């Protein structure tokens, strides 16, 4: 990964003023990460942790308060959001939204929706070429051509999301930002969409930033994962490492909260006290997780922990507790008793 990363975010922060006061919401606070070309990076955290703000900063819908965003070596963070749509990078960074029913124009047919970015960003005006490109995009996401004339309300949830993905990939972006792309869908449809996304990545060599609160999904699709808590990245690393040996107590709590499809085996739950703290002018010298952390001690109240490398594979976590015991920290999986594994029925033709 010595080559220039496709996306390079450095010390990014975004503050929103609180109306009528001199105070500010620290939505994103000193966040740095990179995404290599062809990589899929997952971004997880609870609502309010700053995931969506990062998405809007990276897709350049919002201007950062501080820090820089480099895309393919070009400093795109300094281009005002209002002018970004006129740049070539607009077509190179595209997004798939959470709720396909809400994010599609109800008065556009599937064809119109997919054609829109082609007209506006790729400047395609010839009817025949537009037709070819729309059909190609629909084909890539497995949307039958006969559905192109339909309006969103005439499509199922899964078909709507295929339209949403086709719109995003029609202009062949290099970076695709997926904001909870399956959370509005049924599990059976979710599986289909995940396969579509994995397939597209392979065929088009696209790079993904995959935002989700569902860690099981992040694990299925991503190479690396970033865990956010109250505006800061608290853990980062290869998915399997983060899942099997989480370094931050928050990550451990998140992992232990996922319902696992192995009934009968109750796992020890890492319980969190209360709700996340306030993002309004948080103290710069207190760990953001202090107060909710099951293991917090007095140093956490005096000094903000910073991300530090804990493994050779780029695994990083921001926690003081790692000073004493990196290797010996208990993980949910090692605490789990050996349990019999349930057979997964595969279609059930047995």
């Amino acid at each position, binding site marked *: 990964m010595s080559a220039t990363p496709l996306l390079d975010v450095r010390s990014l922060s975004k503050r929103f003023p609180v109306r009528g006061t001199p105070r500010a919401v620290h939505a994103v606070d000193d966040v740095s990460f990179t995404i290599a070309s062809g990589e899929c990076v997952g971004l997880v955290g609870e609502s309010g942790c700053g995931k969506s703000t990062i998405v809007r900063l990276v897709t350049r819908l919002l201007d950062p308060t501080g820090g820089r965003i480099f895309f393919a070596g070009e400093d795109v963070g300094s281009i005002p959001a209002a002018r970004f749509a006129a740049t070539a990078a607009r077509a190179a960074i595209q997004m798939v939204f959470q709720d396909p029913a809400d994010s599609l124009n109800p008065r556009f047919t599937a064809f119109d929706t997919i054609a829109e970015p082609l007209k506006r960003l790729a400047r395609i005006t010839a009817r025949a070429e537009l037709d070819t490109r729309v059909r190609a995009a629909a084909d890539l996401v497995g949307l039958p051509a006969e559905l192109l004339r339909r309006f969103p309300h005439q499509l199922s949830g899964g078909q709507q999301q295929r339209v949403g993905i086709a719109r995003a990939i029609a202009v062949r972006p290099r970076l695709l930002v997926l904001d909870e792309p399956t959370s509005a869908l049924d599990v*059976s449809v979710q*599986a289909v969409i*995940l396969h579509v996304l994995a397939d597209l990545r392979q065929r088009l060599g696209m790079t993904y930033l995959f935002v989700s609160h569902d860690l099981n999904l992040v694990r299925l699709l991503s190479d690396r994962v970033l865990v956010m808590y109250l505006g800061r990245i608290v853990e980062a690393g290869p998915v399997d490492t983060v899942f099997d040996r989480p370094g931050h107590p928050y990550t451990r709590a998140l992992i232990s909260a996922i319902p696992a*499809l192995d*009934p009968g085996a109750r796992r020890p739950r890492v319980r969190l006290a209360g*709700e996340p703290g306030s993002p309004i002018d948080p103290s710069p010298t207190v760990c953001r997780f202090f107060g909710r952390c099951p293991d917090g001690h007095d140093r956490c109240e005096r000094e903000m922990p910073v991300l530090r490398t804990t493994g050779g594979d780029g695994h990083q976590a921001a926690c003081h507790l790692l000073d004493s015991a990196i290797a010996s920290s208990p993980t949910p999986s090692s605490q789990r008793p050996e349990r019999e594994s*349930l057979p997964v029925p595969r*279609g059930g033709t*047995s």
Partner: protein
Amino acid sequence: MTVPAAAVPLLSVEDLSVEFQTRDGVVRALEDVAFTVARGETVGLVGESGSGKSVSALAILGILHPAARITSGRAVFGGLDLIAASETQREEYRGRELSMIFQNPRTALNPIRTVGRQIEDVLVRHANLGRARVRARALELLAQVQIADPARAWGAYPFELSGGMCQRVMIALAVACSPALLIADEPTTGLDVTTQAAILELIEDLARRSQMATVLITHDLALVGERCDRIVVMHAGHVVETAPTLELFRAPRHPYTARLIASTPRAGARLADLAPIPGGVPDLRGVLPPCRYRLRCERAAPACDEPPLPRQQIARGHLVACRFPS
């Protein structure tokens, strides 16, 4: 937590059929739905959207949309058939013996009334407590659903609280009169995983303490697998399989159940392990085959077109609606 099968169930739903009158014809949303809930038991009702999970719950409570018509069936709760009962009789039960919480707590709460007042309204209506006593009881309930500062929450409007807090308030409303049955319709969809775990633990805890039975409606099989004693699987308005949780996961007999399990991500699974269910929930208008899963089914045979849909008991407490159960 299993209750002897011989015991009279708390709720017994039999042959429940519901139709919706729409401009495009009659939607046969439920057909001969049957399941039971024992006292203190937690039952999961799962299936894709459009499978009839919520319609079943609304029919039992008697709060279906005016376009809906119950064409057959009974829902016997504590000796009373809620379907045949008068609205006055049902009102005696609703909120007191039988409560429901909904998917989106913020829209289910009254936006212009403080949450404390909303809890008091329930208490005044159903618990015969004087205005003086209700305040103390409302604060007690807020503390019971583990809201850190009950006095502050009492005076808050729903928009001032987080989604998780609103759901706790909904639960406080629902359990205010210690109901015998709580129906929770997707209570944690839209909430974070950590909040989801906390809310479900809270419901479980309240249920255990007061022997409250719970029907947990969700599309998330992993969630019911972790929380329920028994699972009822629905597809297109039919109950296709009912079994104790472990048995259902270990040996699903209906092809749809097997598909549903295979499409749910498991911890540590790879994408290749995740198998989608072919096709979609069928259009419930017009003429439907006896088995509504027929068009999506890999076991389908000409015999499947012969009515009636067989519903057989395969083992004790394990029912399956399929001609070719595995």
